């Protein structure tokens, strides 16, 4: 296995053209490697067959942990570890625990979900994922194919596809896997 991949990509100047091009690629059974855009393009996910993100499940799990941890910890402190009577109230004064339980639920859910997001996307300080073109974060919409193992016929076919769908420019770049 080579440690490098040859990416063939075309840049479009409008998201409508991009969506049309993805539809053509689907009709022609072209195997799109990835699509890169300067902002979230709506309607793209179903065309690329991307399943709905399951981040909310992570958020729910972390939130549940935070909720149980907060409530459980306060319960343990005030009924087992060091019971103190405050203002004649019961040791286990549930209503007074609600605000902190709520805050910890939100805190755990948010922090956990954000960490999961960065980890599954492979993003983080110093991360160097594949960057194809500097204008992709500006105003160009990119469709990329993995051309590492493709013969010249297949590459020509992809170039023909880019031309046909109105790509503004066609590039190829070797990137680390």
């Amino acid at each position, binding site marked *: 296995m080579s440690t490098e991949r040859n990416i063939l990509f075309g840049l479009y100047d409008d998201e409508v053209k991009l969506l049309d091009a993805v539809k053509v690629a689907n009709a022609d059974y072209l195997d799109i490697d990835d699509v890169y855009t*300067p902002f979230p393009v709506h309607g793209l996910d179903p065309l690329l067959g991307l399943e709905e993100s399951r*981040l909310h499940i992570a958020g729910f799990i972390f939130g549940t942990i935070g909720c149980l941890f907060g409530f459980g910890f306060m319960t343990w402190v005030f009924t087992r570890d060091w019971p103190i009577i405050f*203002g004649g109230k019961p040791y286990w004064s549930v209503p007074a625990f609600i605000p902190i339980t709520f805050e910890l639920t939100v805190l755990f859910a948010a922090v956990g979900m954000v960490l999961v997001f960065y980890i599954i996307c492979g993003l983080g300080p110093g991360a160097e994922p594949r960057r194809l073109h500097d204008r992709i974060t500006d*105003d160009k919409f990119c469709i990329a194919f993995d051309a590492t193992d493709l013969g010249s016929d297949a590459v020509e076919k992809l170039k023909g596809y880019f031309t046909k769908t109105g790509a503004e420019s066609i590039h190829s770049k070797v990137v680390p896997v």
Partner: protein
Amino acid sequence: MSGHVAPVRKPLITGSKTYHQITEDICRPTETAPSLSWVITFMLSVMCLGVFAFCVAWTVWIGIGSWNLNRTVNWGWDITNFVWWVGIGHAGTLISAILLLFRQKWRTGVNRAAEAMTIFAVVCAGQFPLIHMGRIWLAIFIFPYPNTRGPLWVNFNSPLLWDVFAISTYFTVSLLFWYAGLVPDFATVRDRAKGVRKKIYSFVAFGWNGSAKHWQRWESLSLILAGLATPLVLSVHTIVSFDFATSVIPGWHTTIFPPYFVAGAIFSGFAMVLTLMLIARKVLHLEDYITVEHVESMNKVILLTGSIVGVAYLTELFIAWYSGYIYEQFAFLNRVLGPYYWSYIGMMLCNVLSPQIFWSKKIRRSLFWTFFMSIFINIGMWFERFVIIATTLARDYLPSSWSYYVPSWVEIGIFVGSIGLFFTLFLIFTRIAPVVAIAEIKSILKTAGDQYIGDKAHSHQDGRSEPITEGVNDDKEENK
């Protein structure tokens, strides 16, 4: 992408921008040398920050005795400032979270700066409880951690501890939300930068590359964080109001406090956003992105929340009278006519009466009046907290211990200095990060750009983005 847009919607982006122009316009302040007005404002802010540092050091060195608090009035400007800053810190998350859930497109022009403002305001707010402790090096005692004192835990039944959790959670979640939004925009700045700047922005952009799957997760993350932040933002000022409402002080012990504080927080927060944005749009030349439409929308929220606050003031008075209980009645009569009557007048004038001018569409759309009112409202909201705190305490249970409180120069210095801290942070932010959310603005261009909707819309042009002028296909052959 040009979904249906109701004809009554006015454009939110003017100047017939292309995607590339948006990038240019918003990245420019981070790429050019600062203007003279920025440098002067920054120097003034840093001077104020110096006053803050000096007065805080003085307080820590001499002790809380350098403040004019006494046994009767034991909360003064410190807690007033704390509540004031926390309130200001509510607008950012409201704009980015609640308005995201309501699909209000105008939020995209102001959300970034408003969120930044939120974070800086909470930073300012957090200073006050800490320095009010006196022995600031023991501030860690507020956190429940295993310790050598027993371990003796904190009092989880105390609203002051709820505050610790609420404010620190709010700060953390706001920061994460803000940064998640900044990552794609830092990537935009990175891809335009060279040399050392490119290295720095590569680091902070976390390697963002705009992949479709990443965008999908990013949108999902934003939406869920918004869903979490919405009850959070409402809970934070509710809990701040519990500091008062769960006490047994007449004038504080009222159930109306949570909604009244939340409305007041949004009110003052929006006023501060307007103060900052009206300056920023001029200085950073963002008039095409922060338009009069944005200003008008925010003024409508100000009018609504100002009126809610006004109703709350009157309800308080009514309920005090209706309770038939003379001590409660005295507490409120004292609030209006007592020794601090001037602060009550200031509060009513700034918060309730003056925002009513926003019923006029002409004034809502006037930048001069908006700016004037935004300052006015912030003064009024400061008075509100002062009225609640100092007025109530000054006339406590025992007439023999009644007192009158005026701040010492140290307290004034800390307050003025905290404004310096806030502006220093905000001014630095305007130089290093895109002040408007670039990716989000681009995503509404075709439904809110003035070339697509509104009176001046012309027929759709395809391919509005600008061609690549350099480096076309330059790396095309090298791999063959």
